[in-house]
């Protein structure tokens, strides 16, 4: 049997999954290292504003305020009691052997580990829309973060477009805060949404909450739209061109556009750590392969939206399960996981139904005009990508070498899924056969000085 403390366990990420994983380990007498990019623990969904902001949790997190406060309080208490070794504002950039290399405020910092729990969360899943490289076009997640953590709207007259639960949620939050919204454009048809509804009824409370929110949007909300493009001048957006479900063309004036199609798992570190991946048809993306507990390999565990996009409730469950698996593998007493495994199943059934109700717009992506920018980092167009397929074959890493889609500063985070769709469309293959971009360290840009000084 392992003695608690004999092995060093590192958790990357302090959102709902990372916090619950830490709690489970602390309860077993272990003092984990927690490394997180945020200024404060909470992750994106329960992100906390900096010091000096005074809006109460009910304003910031709505119906989820109690859950947010519970997690924040739990984490702060563990830090204050010295029960975890907490490193905020630290980005893990590379994994090699059992070493993590991180960039912290003061420079580079290395962490060794015996067991690693990755709870790296998710980011917006983006599809290219003509004009989306303009200043004043943001992700839906950005739109929410700006409001929650900074108390600002990103424009004076806002169009939100895309699909998924965040589209409705952000719209309601902005309206409540006094922002002007010109239109909410959902690329999912009402038919898609109705087809997903029965599966979503495993969590009827959430469905009801979603319908109530949708009702608040009234005539601003349009389902089944097609986005033709964002009209811009030198300053940014001036309007969105779109067609409604009956094919009629519209132009909606705005100075800001928020785009997003549900979420994309942040899997760069999982890939560097050696995870295998499978293409998931419901979520339309590559996801790490694990067992139900989150075991991905020897001493490697995954939890939260970086593994399966179940949302915050599912992430809490997955965090506890990953830590329980870690304890069991160390030969330590671990909590009974039967109830959490049932909760995980329910969260997954709901999330998969929701992913089908608000699908990735594969056909629209494949049809974007040649001049549309696909890679925002380096301005690579759909036409350049399509042309490279003819030279190198329909494979994502070859197209990356030839057309540089995925080689820019975001490292493929915002172009990879659309790029694969375009490759598949051009090569006449299934998107899963276009392959998956290999991860490269560092997974974020690093000031060269941080490495030179500390070398």
């Amino acid at each position: 049997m392992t003695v608690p403390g004999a092995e060093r366990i590192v958790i990357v990420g302090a959102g709902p999954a990372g916090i619950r994983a830490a709690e489970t380990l602390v309860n077993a007498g272990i003092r984990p290292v927690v490394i997180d990019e945020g200024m404060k623990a909470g992750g994106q969904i329960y992100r906390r504003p900096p010091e000096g902001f005074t809006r109460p949790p009910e304003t910031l997190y709505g119906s989820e305020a109690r859950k947010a406060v519970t997690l924040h309080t739990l984490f702060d208490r563990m830090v204050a009691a010295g029960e975890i070794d907490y490193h905020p504002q630290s980005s893990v950039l590379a994994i090699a052997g059992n070493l993590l290399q991180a960039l912290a405020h003061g420079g580079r910092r290395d962490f060794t580990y015996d067991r690693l729990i990755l709870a790296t969360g998710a980011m917006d899943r983006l599809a290219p829309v003509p004009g989306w490289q303009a200043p004043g076009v943001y992700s839906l997640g950005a739109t929410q973060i700006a409001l929650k953590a900074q108390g600002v709207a990103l424009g004076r007259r806002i169009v939100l477009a895309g699909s998924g639960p965040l589209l409705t949620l952000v719209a309601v939050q902005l309206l409540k805060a006094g922002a002007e919204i010109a239109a909410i454009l959902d690329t999912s048809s009402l038919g898609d949404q109705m087809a997903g509804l029965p599966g979503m009824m495993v969590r009827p409370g959430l469905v009801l909450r979603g319908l109530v929110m949708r009702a608040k949007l009234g005539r601003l909300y349009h389902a089944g739209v097609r986005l033709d493009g964002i009209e811009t001048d030198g300053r940014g957006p001036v309007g969105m061109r779109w067609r409604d479900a009956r094919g009629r063309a519209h132009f909606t004036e705005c100075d800001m556009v928020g785009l997003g199609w549900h979420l994309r798992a942040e899997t760069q570190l999982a890939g560097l750590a050696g995870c295998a991946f499978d293409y998931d048809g419901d979520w339309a993306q590559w996801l790490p392969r694990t067992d139900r507990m989150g075991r991905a390999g020897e001493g490697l565990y995954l939890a939260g939206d970086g593994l399966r996009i179940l949302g915050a409730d599912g992430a809490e469950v997955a965090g506890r399960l990953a830590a329980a698996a870690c304890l069991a593998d160390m030969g330590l007493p671990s909590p009974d996981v039967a109830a959490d495994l049932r909760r995980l199943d329910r969260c997954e059934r709901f999330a998969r139904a929701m992913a089908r109700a608000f699908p990735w717009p594969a056909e629209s992506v494949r049809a974007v005009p040649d001049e549309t920018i696909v890679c925002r980092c380096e301005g690579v167009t759909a036409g350049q990508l399509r042309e490279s397929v003819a030279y190198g074959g329909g494979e994502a890493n070859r197209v990356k070498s030839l057309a540089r889609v995925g080689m820019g500063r975001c490292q493929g985070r915002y172009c990879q899924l659309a790029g694969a769709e375009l490759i598949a469309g051009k090569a006449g293959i299934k998107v899963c056969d276009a392959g998956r971009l290999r991860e490269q360290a560092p997974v974020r840009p690093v000031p060269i000085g941080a490495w030179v000084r500390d070398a």
Partner: protein
Amino acid sequence: MTSGPQAAGQAGRMVRLADRDRPRVRFRLDGADCAALAGDTVLTAVLVSAPAVRQSEFGPERRAGFCLMGACQDCWLWQEDGGRLRACSTLIAEGMQLRTVPPEDWQ
């Protein structure tokens, strides 16, 4: 306090909706005096008075950030001393000297 050439009226991109009652912080943007509020990120501080934080190196458009969560790398900004910072994940501090274009001796 002066507020910079671009700070007047509708020049800024962001609009403050809440938590406006915070201490003021002064900084410089492209050589002009600007004001922000303590707790603003550099991105917020700049975009309440300006429309963008940098020029794209690969296209004609300017850029103003995109993800606000440190993933897209769209909001890197120059400082007078030649260093760069990611505006969405750095808080504004009194006396910061920021640039939307590289320092002159860089080019």
